């Protein structure tokens, strides 16, 4: 198992519950991935742990993995995967060793996209996820007056959390003509008095030693700044919430065939309905297999864990099918509606390409 975020933890838990020996490797000092900075209540239904705050879900998963006795190796970076499922790991940046596996689940997550504009290297410009880590994990307020770029769920949720942490959010900008995030999230931010501005972008950040101002402008229908629409906002922090890209490096090293699916974040390894990649016994789950949410990542992790346990002989065909069917039902419940349909269709393209290979 590579990386112990929500998807990796759930895969490990399913494997261990079936009786398979599991090693969970993560380069970070603590498991849980991004769950511990999610202080909001999750969506979904009770079976998806809806209504529970992200960090509490993280605590539950950790407690379960500890109770099961999963071998969690922290500060352990997986740097290579050779043929024959030989993993090359580096522990505490000091000791290098290899480990042979019968199956590998890659749950490497994603990285946040940046946006470049004049002044973007000034201190005070950071990704939304970085700001979220600072306030919710380290309890450090990165600034007092924040400009958020991007109105997807990450942008509006982090805007809300920055206000909870005591910052002012001066505006949320969206380059598209319509806001991206769930209406209930945008409404929360809006009634706190934050302007949400569509067809608007940042032109540049200004400041001597760090961000002091942002110059913004309205965009025409071809996304070109409208001359004369420039405005200057006094801000000390600019957060970028402009999407995520699957962290595919390890899957590439493992030789997994990739597909380009812009709706799910770019290039990602193809997979089948059991999350199997194009390489035998290598599974890909979570944001690596297409940017979605922690709730979908956990279900994908479970699917891979269930199937891998079966493939290694720890779960009979009937139990595997029943469990997989149940997990897929929960997954599809999360991919309904206008927001889910786009992801559902994109996921189907990944499955079709896998079937064609």
């Amino acid at each position: 198992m590579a990386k112990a975020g929500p998807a990796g933890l759930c895969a490990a838990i399913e494997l261990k519950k079936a009786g398979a020996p599991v090693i969970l490797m993560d380069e970070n000092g603590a498991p849980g991935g991004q769950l511990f900075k999610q202080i909001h209540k999750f969506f979904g239904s009770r079976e998806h742990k809806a209504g529970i705050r992200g960090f509490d879900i993280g605590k539950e998963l950790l407690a379960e993995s500890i109770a099961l006795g999963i071998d969690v190796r922290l500060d352990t970076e997986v740097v290579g995967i050779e043929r024959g499922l030989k993993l090359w790991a580096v522990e505490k940046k000091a000791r290098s060793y290899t480990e042979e596996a019968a199956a590998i689940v890659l749950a490497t997550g994603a990285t946040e996209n940046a946006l470049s504009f004049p002044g973007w290297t000034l201190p005070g410009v950071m990704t939304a996820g970085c700001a979220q880590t600072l306030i919710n994990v380290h309890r450090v307020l990165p600034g007092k007056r924040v400009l958020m770029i991007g109105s997807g769920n990450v942008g509006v949720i982090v805007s809300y959390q920055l206000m909870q942490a005591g910052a002012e959010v001066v505006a949320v900008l969206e380059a598209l003509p319509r806001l991206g995030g769930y209406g209930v999230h945008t409404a929360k931010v809006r009634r706190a008095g934050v302007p949400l501005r569509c067809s608007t972008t940042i032109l540049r950040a200004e400041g001597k030693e760090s961000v002091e101002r942002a110059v913004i402008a309205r965009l025409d229908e071809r996304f070109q700044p409208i001359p004369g629409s420039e405005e200057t906002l006094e801000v000390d922090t600019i957060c970028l919430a402009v999407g995520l890209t699957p962290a595919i490096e390890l899957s590439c090293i493992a030789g997994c065939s990739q597909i380009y699916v812009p709706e799910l974040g770019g290039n990602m390894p193809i997979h089948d309905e059991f999350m199997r990649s194009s390489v035998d016994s290598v599974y890909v789950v979570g944001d690596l297999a297409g940017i979605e949410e922690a709730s979908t990542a956990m279900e994908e992790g479970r699917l891979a864990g269930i199937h891998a346990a079966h493939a290694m002989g720890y779960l009979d065909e009937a139990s595997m099918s029943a469990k997989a069917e149940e997990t897929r039902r929960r997954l599809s419940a999360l991919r309904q509606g206008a927001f889910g349909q786009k992801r559902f269709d994109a996921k189907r393209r990944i499955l079709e390409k896998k079937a064609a290979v």
Partner: protein
Amino acid sequence: MSSNDYLKTMGAPSFDELERAGMLPSLADLAGRGCVCVECVEEIPCNPCETSCPQGALVVGYPITNLPVVDRSKCTLCGLCIAACPGLAITIKSVEAGNAKIRFPWEYLPLPAAGDEVEMVDRLGEAVCAGKILSVNSAAKNNRTAVVTAAFPAAFVQQVASIRRKRHGTV
């Protein structure tokens, strides 16, 4: 599903959009004991409101992207759904003798306290009138979402959505 143009450009739903989703109570609904106001006009996969309701008065059903429907004849106005909604989209409002009340979710510090004079705001965060905090419920079962009750003049009952946030270090 309607296009919700106002919601998707301004960030909060308009009266029309709420009306179209069957989520704008009439003044008759709000009179007396009042009613629960669910402002969830987009099909998102979510149903904790339904599972939180001991009376079965809030129904999402399957698929969980259905919009919630309230059966006012079953609702006892217990308010459990207010803190259960991850979207903080549920309030309870009522009007009696020229005074309106709103029970709403609150997740900012400092928490308001009973007796506080506050500014009531609309869905866009604009101040609409003065109000007074009646009570603050921080019960453990609300999982760190306080449920606050405030009173304000009845004329503003449809506009009011929340209170203005107190800034850290200011009054």
